[in-house]
């Protein structure tokens, strides 16, 4: 009898405990498969649209400089672009703090956002072509190093952490939630958490 209770309990625990999956762009049958440019028709929004690059794991948040709505989202991206990865780590995580919680936070952060600087600079140095400007080389680095980077007409979210939560795709950068999209199987349209729809632009 006791043996049956133990086995049943063990089975129950296994079924109830959620799996601890790694960095999530796939949950079950759902995948964040958006790729290409998505734009809104609402001209008063500061966010004109998004460009998703699934292969490179990049999201460009395209800015409409004439807009004035959703300013808080742009402000957040700007703050993260100024703060950068290194200052974020210094401010929020302390690798030398031996407390269990801090170590757990730091390891989780590293699992999601770690990068090999040496390998990246070696790779990029071989991609540099004559006539390239410094800003071109910097962009090659930004594509490979997790973070948020401000450009004249867009913010680049590089290597974001994307996961599904309660039917919303959550996009995190530097441990901070920056974007949320409604779950949908339709890849021609994407809707953010303000209810703004962005339609896919045809490839030219």
């Amino acid at each position, binding site marked *: 009898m006791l043996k049956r209770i133990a086995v049943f309990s063990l089975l129950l625990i296994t079924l109830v405990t959620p799996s601890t999956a790694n960095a999530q762009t796939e949950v079950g049958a759902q995948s964040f498969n958006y790729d290409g440019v998505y734009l809104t028709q609402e001209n008063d929004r500061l966010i004109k649209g998004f460009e998703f690059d699934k292969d490179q794991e990049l999201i460009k948040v395209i800015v409409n400089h004439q807009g004035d709505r959703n300013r808080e989202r742009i402000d957040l991206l700007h703050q993260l672009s100024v703060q950068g*990865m*290194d200052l974020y780590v*210094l401010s929020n995580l302390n690798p030398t703090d031996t407390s269990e919680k801090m170590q757990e936070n730091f390891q989780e952060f590293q699992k999601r956002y770690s990068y090999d*600087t*040496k390998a990246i600079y070696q790779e990029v*140095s*071989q991609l540099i072509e004559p006539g390239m*400007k*410094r800003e071109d080389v910097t962009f090659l680095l930004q594509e490979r190093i997790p*973070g948020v980077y401000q450009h004249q007409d867009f913010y680049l979210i590089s290597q974001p952490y994307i996961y599904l939560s309660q039917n919303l795709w959550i996009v995190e950068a530097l441990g901070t939630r920056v974007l949320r999209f409604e779950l949908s199987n339709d890849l021609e349209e994407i809707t953010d958490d303000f209810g703004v729809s962005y339609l896919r632009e045809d490839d030219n």
Partner: protein
Amino acid sequence: MKKLLNFKALYLGFLSLLSVIFISSNSVMHAQESSLTTDIPFSGVYVNQEATSEIKELYFYADQKVVLISLNPDYTGLETIFPLYSALNNPELVVTPQKNHDAEAEALVLNQIMPDYAQIYAAVAEEITPSTPFAEAELRVNFKVPGLYRLEAFNWSTPRSHNYILSQPLIESQGQDHFFNMYNLPVLALTSNLNDETLVNERGQIFEKTADTLPELDALIDQ
């Protein structure tokens, strides 16, 4: 006849005077002939004690051909460094080399304008480790690419503000006068005394040498 002789004497005297003037001016020109170089003529830390000066400290890192310019945070006068930084922030600013430079000098200026990025980034890749922060790796690139950069505080035990790095300047020296240029724009103009213990800028402000090295910057570069 007498008049002719007087005229000849006058004429010869006039020619002699012209020759003296010509030779003297050539001598002066040779004495003031400037040399254009990437070699920084001083090394060490120079401090200006005046409370009202724009620049508080200059650190000449001769080995790396880099000058750290530390500004006075309490300065409220006309700024010179920040406007230059704004103008020079784009390393692709192309300035036509002045025509009176010789071929070697022109080559130096052109090299300043169009650095070999592939070589520079490969060199930085050799210096860094997999865990080197992005900001530090970029700083190492800045040390190799000519320009005037703002030095952002990062990971230093005592964060510094109002710091700029003048990287790979071209220096034109005329005797004890030294002009630090970036893309043909003057950034610093300094006159040194004979033993280089004191520097005076164009505003008459005095910088005295206080140390040979700046440990926190040395530690970063020499890692």
